[in-house]
């Protein structure tokens, strides 16, 4: 237990309890933040981290408990209350208006400078001042939709700094950033704490937690299960505290000899949403029984590459051969029929249908093939059996097969998607960010499954921004930068440093 001296206490949350129908998201949670410190919240999916912070930010109301700011009890009923009290929050999912400019997003909700005519001049100036002061490079007049993920993250932080918050909450801010960006972010955050601000940091990435935190509080099932600091603990201990059992952080890769090529990509060119080149003269080969990792800063063409391979994005030129079949002009359906599976990057957007039951989502890709479909009719007996089997095999935690999928937690939805995609014993698997936003327990499981597939002779293309993951799983790693391959490393020679350089566009 770290000693606290009441004087510099910025925030105290005491005995916070929050119940949702059927779930106790937070149970008698005590939590505090001092000026100038980074206090990390750690926990599995569904542990209650976001809920606790949403209470603090006025998005939810606590059923019990008290919140004090600088010693004074306060009630926070809405985000605006929180903002007025100097609290800022960077949400797990960006809270930006794509069709507005950076300046407009920053100015949103602030008392207008002039009643009638919108005047953003002062806002722009202040933004550029702050960009210089904190090394946050953002163009005030750029539209959000034009920005890459990393830049959007900076806009989020700019919004907080601009409002000169004294307490900033960051809910999984790094899950979409690359090492370089994470380092920059941490520098900025440190600058903020030096200025006497207090930060709450939420992340599933233990090395980040170790690197940034002053104090760490671990939640499990809504309860506080441990308080510590980096100097007193290790990643393994933290993992144990979170999950409540031993977790193996680095996946074991058994030997497996790569056989014939399952995916061949030659001179592939693909355009991005704005018609600009996203993937350029791209060459790649993935053989059965091997994992090829694609590392890179988000927004360097990975998404477009995956979509092109999936048949969701037109190919400008070049060729893609899967199992010996040219697929550049094939529909997603035809491509799937070739034994290709995907784990899409955005699980709730592309992977599953929230309103559909677990069962319906499990048959989404095979619904029109026997045994599930007979002459266009669905065979519910088959579906029932097949799905309960999958749910068991992939330990998807769901009350029933008819439960709406949106009612599952992030980790389990991801498991559901993986269960579906692997059910057909794919010969080629394209996995984008398979463990993003998923807790280490689930991540561990997913990694094992991927390794099993590899051992079973599946060819796997792993697109991930989590370098530990890429290095841990891949036989070969290609680094993408501005749509091109900057370089390819074998697993042995790959290190975070070398990859980091390539990702920054520095070829060797």
């Amino acid at each position: 237990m770290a000693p606290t001296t009441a004087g510099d206490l910025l925030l105290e949350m005491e005995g916070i309890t929050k119940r949702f129908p059927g779930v106790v998201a937070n149970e008698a949670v005590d939590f505090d933040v001092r000026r100038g410190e980074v206090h990390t919240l750690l926990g599995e999916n569904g542990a209650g981290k976001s809920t606790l912070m949403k209470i603090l930010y006025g998005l939810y109301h606590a059923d019990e408990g008290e919140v004090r700011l600088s010693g004074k009890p306060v009630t926070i009923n809405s985000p605006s209350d929180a903002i007025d009290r100097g609290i800022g929050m960077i949400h797990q999912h960006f809270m930006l208006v794509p069709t507005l400019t950076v300046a407009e997003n920053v100015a949103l909700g602030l008392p207008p400078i002039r009643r009638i005519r919108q005047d953003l001049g002062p806002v722009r100036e202040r933004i550029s001042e702050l960009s210089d002061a904190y090394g946050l490079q953002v163009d005030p007049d750029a539209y959000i939709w034009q920005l890459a993920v990393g830049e959007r993250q900076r806009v989020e932080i700019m919004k907080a700094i601009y409002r000169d918050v004294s307490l900033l909450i960051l809910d999984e801010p790094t899950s979409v950033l690359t090492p370089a960006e994470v380092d920059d972010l941490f520098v900025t955050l440190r600058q903020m704490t030096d200025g006497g601000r207090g930060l709450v940091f939420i992340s599933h990435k233990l090395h980040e937690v170790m690197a940034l935190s002053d104090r760490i509080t671990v939640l499990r099932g809504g309860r506080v299960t441990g308080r510590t600091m980096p100097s007193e603990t290790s990643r393994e201990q933290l993992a144990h505290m979170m999950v409540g059992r031993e977790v193996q952080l680095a996946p074991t890769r058994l030997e497996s000899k790569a056989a014939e090529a399952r995916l061949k990509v030659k001179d592939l060119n693909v355009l991005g949403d704005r018609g600009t080149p996203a993937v350029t003269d791209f060459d790649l080969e993935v053989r059965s029984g091997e994992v090829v990792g694609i590392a890179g800063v988000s927004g360097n063409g990975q998404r477009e590459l995956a979509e092109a391979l999936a048949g969701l994005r037109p190919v400008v030129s070049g060729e893609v051969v899967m199992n010996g079949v040219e697929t550049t002009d094939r529909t997603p359906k035809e491509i799937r029929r070739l034994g290709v599976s995907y784990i899409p990057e955005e699980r709730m957007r592309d992977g599953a249908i929230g309103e559909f039951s677990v069962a319906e989502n499990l048959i989404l890709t095979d619904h029109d093939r026997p045994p599930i479909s007979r002459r266009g009719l669905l065979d519910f007996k088959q579906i029932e059996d097949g799905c309960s089997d999958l749910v068991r095999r992939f330990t998807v935690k769901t009350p029933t097969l008819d439960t709406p999928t949106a009612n599952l937690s992030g980790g389990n939805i991801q498991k559901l998607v993986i269960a579906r995609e692997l059910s057909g014993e794919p010969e080629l698997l394209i996995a984008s960010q398979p463990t993003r936003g998923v807790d280490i327990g689930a991540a561990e499981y997913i990694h094992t499954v991927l390794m099993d597939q590899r051992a079973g002779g599946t060819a796997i293309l792993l697109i991930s921004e989590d370098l530990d993951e890429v290095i841990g799983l891949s036989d070969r790693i290609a680094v993408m930068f501005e749509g091109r391959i900057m370089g390819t490393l074998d697993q042995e020679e790959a290190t975070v440093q070398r990859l980091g350089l390539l990702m920054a566009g520095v070829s060797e």
Partner: protein
Amino acid sequence: MSDFFTVSVLLATLAAGIRLATPFLLAALGETLGQRSGVLNLGVEGVMLLGAYGAYYATLRTESVLLGIVIGLAVGGAMGIVYGVVTLALKAEQGISGIGIFIFGLGLSDLLFQKQVGTPTPIDGLGDLAIPVLGDLPWVGEVLFHQNVLVYVAFLLVPAMWYLINRTPFGMNVRAVGETPEAADSLGVSVNRTRYITIFVGNALAGLAGASLALELGIFQQNLTNGHGFIAVALVYFGAWRPVGVMAGSMVFGLVSAMVLQWKTLGIVVGTTASIVGMFPAVLTILVLVLVSRRTGSPSALTRPFERGH
């Protein structure tokens, strides 16, 4: 044809086109504001009918056109509050509750008319109002500046609405709320408050649109609007949620209808060919949209109710 292409007839047709475009324009501008904040209102037709009846009845009783206009606005605004409660507080499915509002307006306006007035009684509606100087300009003056006051209002509202949406702090909130309500909310912008305002104004304009019809005609009748409201909604999509685009759409409908009428009057089209010509505006609208593909611009949160923490 020849007698159509005489200056006087052409000018007359233009003037008529502008007059016919006015109800569309007023209603569509209102709908635009609502949709920019993420609320679809298919009930415009019903609101127009109630506004039309309100304006007609007020003028009939008090012989004050001005009061008629005010009542038209007020009735529309009142319906706006109703629609706001239904879609924002009760979070009703917007597409459908709009249809409900339509049917309600259709029924109630007819009911009230039959009970309170009965036999069609003409009123002195809106006379033309010649703008001094400008009205005397050759040609232009006749076409543009000998119109009734609501015509001027409608067309002045186009730049006004553009300014409101794109150049004012409130407009920025509207755009944000229509695009990413969660983000606006997380910065303390009240999503529903913003939407209540846009719905109120939007429906008030629909009411005014109805009033403009009734007062221009100086009469009311069951289902007076006869589809104007639905076309107005369509024109919002035609205009890609931009006031100027909406104006273009309204003009297409106004001018083509005016042209068709002139042709019929002058016997240029007769009998069944008239029906063919009658399709022009609709066909044209679709064609234009096919040619100038307008996938973009739709407010992302359109028809999506906002609930905090979800």
